[in-house]
């Protein structure tokens, strides 16, 4: 009895400026023996993942002409390019943006004061902070105001306030 193996691999990536792109590949194949399924499934998965990952690196046109850092080597990056402007355009990761906004909301923080803090520390406003800088700002906000609810997160490694990890080693 022939067995049809149908495999689909799809990945969606977030891009700057509320953009995203996705790509997927589906293949169908016929197997002669049910015992081949685990091995072939594993092989097909790797094949599809490799193919999709390779194609996804070509992001094509982006709003504001920004290219994501993950697909450019530093030598190709243009640090001199101006940061994106716009009411809702942030340079840091979506998760960092979400956490900063949540901290502001939970602790009723003054957005102007947070922006001023970012300017003191990094010489730029909150929306222009890159991922490294946003991480530093978040750490400082958490140390000043603490996290509660979903805004709480593990403090720095080595911090005396850090709770013992319950999972695996880092």
């Amino acid at each position: 009895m022939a067995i049809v193996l149908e495999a689909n691999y799809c990945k969606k990536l977030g891009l700057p400026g509320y953009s995203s792109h996705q790509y997927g590949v589906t293949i169908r194949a016929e197997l002669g023996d049910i015992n081949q399924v685990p091995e072939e499934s594993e092989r097909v998965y790797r094949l599809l993942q490799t193919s999709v990952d390779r194609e996804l690196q070509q992001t094509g046109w982006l709003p504001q002409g920004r290219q994501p850092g993950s697909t450019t080597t530093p030598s190709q990056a243009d640090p001199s390019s101006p940061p994106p402007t716009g009411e809702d355009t942030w340079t840091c990761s979506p998760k960092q943006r979400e956490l900063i906004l949540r901290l502001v909301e939970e602790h009723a923080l003054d957005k102007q004061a947070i922006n001023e803090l970012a300017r003191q520390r990094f010489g730029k406003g909150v929306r222009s902070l890159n991922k490294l800088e946003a991480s530093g700002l978040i750490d400082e906000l958490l140390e000043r105001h603490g996290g509660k609810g979903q805004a709480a997160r593990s403090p720095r490694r080595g911090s005396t306030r850090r709770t013992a990890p319950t999972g695996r080693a880092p």
Partner: protein
Amino acid sequence: MIRPADPDHRPPADVVAFPLRSSDGALAHVSPSSIRDYLQCSLRFYFKRVLGLPEPGSVSLHLGKAVHAGIQAYWIARWRGGDASTEAVLASYQTAFAAHEQEASVSFAEEERETTLAKGESLLRAYCESEHAQTEAKPIGVEVKLQDDFPELPSPLLGYVDLVLSAADGPVVCDFKTVAATPNVELEAFLHEGQLCAYQLLIEEATGQPVSARELVFLVKTKTPKVIVHRLPPADEAARERFWSMAQAMVDGVYHERWHPQPGMHCGWCPYRGPCARWRGGNDVA
């Protein structure tokens, strides 16, 4: 061997249940230390990161963590305009030293605790007076956790970077090492190349800027403490490819659950020699 399917021929298929692997979760992320652990001894990786067997703390690790906390306090104070005096740094160190005692079981010999505590204090005094600490460069990241997805790996790469300093031609990555004796810096650079390369990749990803240099800062626990800074150029393309190959070898080995003893000098301080001696193959630990 796969043959093209016949679209008109759809036989009923049995549902195949895949058993959970004992290593599920061990690849939630990949870090320089997990790569080092696996490549140094895959069986040790299994005991530590898959089975989660406890690893007794050592005095030198305890001291190293507390000294790192003191250095972290110094640079945060420098960054935020706080108290970066030696006294404030030593206070942070002492607090961390006591806090780690609560967290980990460290067996000090008689008077060893006081000796160790004093050793750390003299190390930090030496660091606070060193050229490295007195640099005009501004920190842009202190003990920062960075995690990002890279197309070379199926799991995100994770790293905790001790210090990132700003420089005109790009960020400088600094990693602090507490060592017992004056190090052979060339050998140390070779041993830590993968870790520094990983940090460089993460910082470049997080900032969009090329890293201009990497520094290993050794705090040497000799009678008169020394601070030795070994500055390295950024990893080139060959070094990056080498790092990704090492990371992929680790991911492949963990995914396929390839564990086996790798006897060597490191067995001398391995806490898992008992279970290692009883290991008979695969996931079997007597």
